[in-house]
């Protein structure tokens, strides 16, 4: 094997052409946890990357690494981007939190942006979206449109982000129909079309006529269409996959945030901060409301406007937890810290949270 290396080295060295580095451009790096072809989480981040390229043209150069496993590999991928001259690096999965901080310590002049985490440093910002705002809206739509009064929720992993979404959906639904029922299936995967489809079928079989998901594939919506029920898209607009079944979709739109942060880096005004943007900041965007009666559509748009303006907060009291204790009193909203680490269900959800 030594010989192999030696031989290969000899060949390639003799032919080596060292890539020239582009001067003066701001290099922006991205680290994705999934393939850009997942048409979900990583795909949407990549759309944001493309938006940067489009907006800044020659002033920036973007690179990405996809399918980076959370854990030891992530640190190397991030460090490699830093070593290759990226001055602004977006790490787009929670599991990249510690690796990002470790690399950031070694590269104080590089700016890092970590999605969905909670640890910051002088050169590490965090950002995330208030997807739960969209989930409150779809909860309302679900309760208005459901005939059986039961919705099914396909959930990935019991992390606060997902639990928050389930609660927001339920609170939205309860604001329309206090007796609304919600069944939850955890598929233990972000991305397994087959299993998501199976879960959708099981939920529909148990009486759900609305299917919603916090997983990335379009499979549940396709099943909904096949079986004549309705659902909501996730991460991107999935109408093309189920034109008759999709009411709307909660779109992750990272473009505006990525453009702002790149601009700040170019201007030299970048500083470490925490961004948690929602409908108002256009980081959460609702796809067109389709397949809905006019009054439901109008009500949804009104709720959307109210949430965006801050008039309505999905986690406004009074809220009772599943165990009957009071989460927040009337006139208050759930504190940010509590939202970030949410590990309890609101009353009425037909599931027990894995502890």
């Amino acid at each position, binding site marked *: 094997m030594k010989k192999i290396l030696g031989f290969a080295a000899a060949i390639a060295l003799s*032919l*080596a052409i060292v890539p020239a580095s582009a001067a003066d451009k701001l290099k922006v790096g991205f680290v994705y946890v999934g393939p850009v072809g997942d048409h979900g989480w990583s795909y949407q981040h990549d759309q944001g990357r493309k938006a940067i390229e489009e907006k800044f043209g020659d002033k920036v150069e973007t690179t990405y690494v996809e399918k980076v496993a959370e854990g030891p590999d992530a640190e190397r991928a991030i460090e490699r981007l830093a070593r290759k001259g990226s001055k602004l690096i977006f790490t787009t999965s929670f599991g990249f939190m510690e690796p990002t901080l470790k690399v950031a310590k070694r590269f104080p002049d590089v700016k890092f942006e970590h999605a969905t985490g909670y640890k910051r440093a002088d050169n590490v910002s965090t950002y995330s979206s208030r997807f739960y705002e969209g989930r409150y809206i779809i909860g309302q739509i679900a309760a208005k449109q459901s005939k059986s009064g039961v919705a099914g929720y396909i959930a990935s992993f019991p992390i606060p982000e997902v639990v928050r979404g389930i609660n927001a959906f339920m609170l939205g639904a309860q604001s329309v129909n206090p007796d609304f029922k919600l069944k939850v299936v955890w598929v233990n995967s972000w991305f397994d079309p087959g299993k998501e489809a199976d879960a959708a079928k099981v939920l529909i079989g148990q009486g759900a006529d609305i299917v919603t998901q916090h997983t990335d594939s379009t499979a549940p919506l396709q099943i909904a269409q096949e079986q004549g029920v309705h659902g909501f898209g996730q991460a991107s607009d999935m109408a093309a996959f189920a034109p008759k079944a999709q009411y709307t979709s909660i779109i992750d739109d990272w473009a505006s945030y990525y453009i702002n942060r790149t601009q700040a880096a170019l201007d030299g005004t970048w500083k470490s901060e925490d961004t948690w943007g929602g409908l108002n900041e256009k980081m959460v965007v609702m796809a067109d409301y389709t397949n809905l009666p006019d009054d439901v559509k109008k009500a949804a748009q009104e709720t959307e406007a109210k949430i965006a303006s801050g008039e309505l907060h999905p986690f406004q009291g009074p809220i009772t937890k599943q165990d009957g204790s009071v989460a927040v009193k009337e006139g208050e909203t759930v504190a940010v810290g509590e939202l970030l680490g*949410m590990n309890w269900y609101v009353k009425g959800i037909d599931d027990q949270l894995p502890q």
Partner: protein
Amino acid sequence: MKLVLEKRSEHSEFMTLMSPLLAIALTVFTGAIIFAIQGLNPFEALYVYFIEPLTSMWSLEEVFVKAAPLILIGAGLSVCYMANVWNIGAEGQLTMGAIVGSIVPIVFTSWQSPLTLVAMIALGALGGALYGAIPAFLKNRFNANEILTSLMLVYIAQLFLDWVVRGPWKDPKGFNFPQSIAFEGWQLFPTLGDGRVHIGIILAVIAVVILTVLMSRTLKGFEILVIGNSPRAGRFAGFSRKKIVWFCLLLSGGLAGIAGIGEVAGPSGQLQPTVSPGYGFTAIIVAFLGRLNPIGVLFAGVMLAITYIGGEAAQIDLGVSDKTAQVFQGILLFFILACDTLILYRIKMLTSTKQQSVAAE
């Protein structure tokens, strides 16, 4: 015209040396074509892929970070496969090693002693070995196929890990995110130099040395070779196939377990829902590339680590997609396997024989 193989009377020394070189040459050639099709400069791409990882201290260190678990697991598997014991569940044994080894830093958080790390490594090995013992027991007691049971146990181990880090071992200050508390300095594998290379690579080399001695100098090694080559001959010699199954699975499971705790207490520094990016499966390839010889595994592990690191570099430097790297790796393996044929066989061209009529097309 038709190609046929003719067995050589003895291994060809010449081909033993030439075959890897030929494989590399063919891979380089095919790779160049693939890169050219994608509109890249093939020379530049090949440089990034194979040479660049070796040109800087940092990436060289990263090669060893990646190679350490591959060698540890691959060495154990090579002994297994030599004995015709098909453990393909090293990934699960690695996961259980990581979990059991983490008992020390997570449950006995404040126990600070020179023995802390020793205990962690020992428990890691124990966890992996015990998990490897399950297929061994099922094989010996119920004749259950170990390929299947060890593979099924991988999924179970991963789901168990998932439950552990989301449930009982969740960091109480972690906003309910799935991760354990971060290990303290004395609970981490010491690093060699200022990069991420840790003592795992030393453990890997030690394992290779011990296994080399075991296979070439001890009765156990001889038993393994005999039973692997011919179970009947083994029986006549009075060797117990069952004992070998136990030995192989405990050994390879234990080594995988050490690799597991090495990942957690090394580069990771805490227990997370995923411990390894499939090292347990990649190590199977490493074992074969190393021709089921511990020393060969040492080089194969480094070699495979280079292609991983190179593939990552190619993504960033050239915008080559991750898929190309995977295809490239697959082709490399094919060529290496195919060229190994030349060691044992001579390829002859038949232009007209009666065999031709029944030849498979």
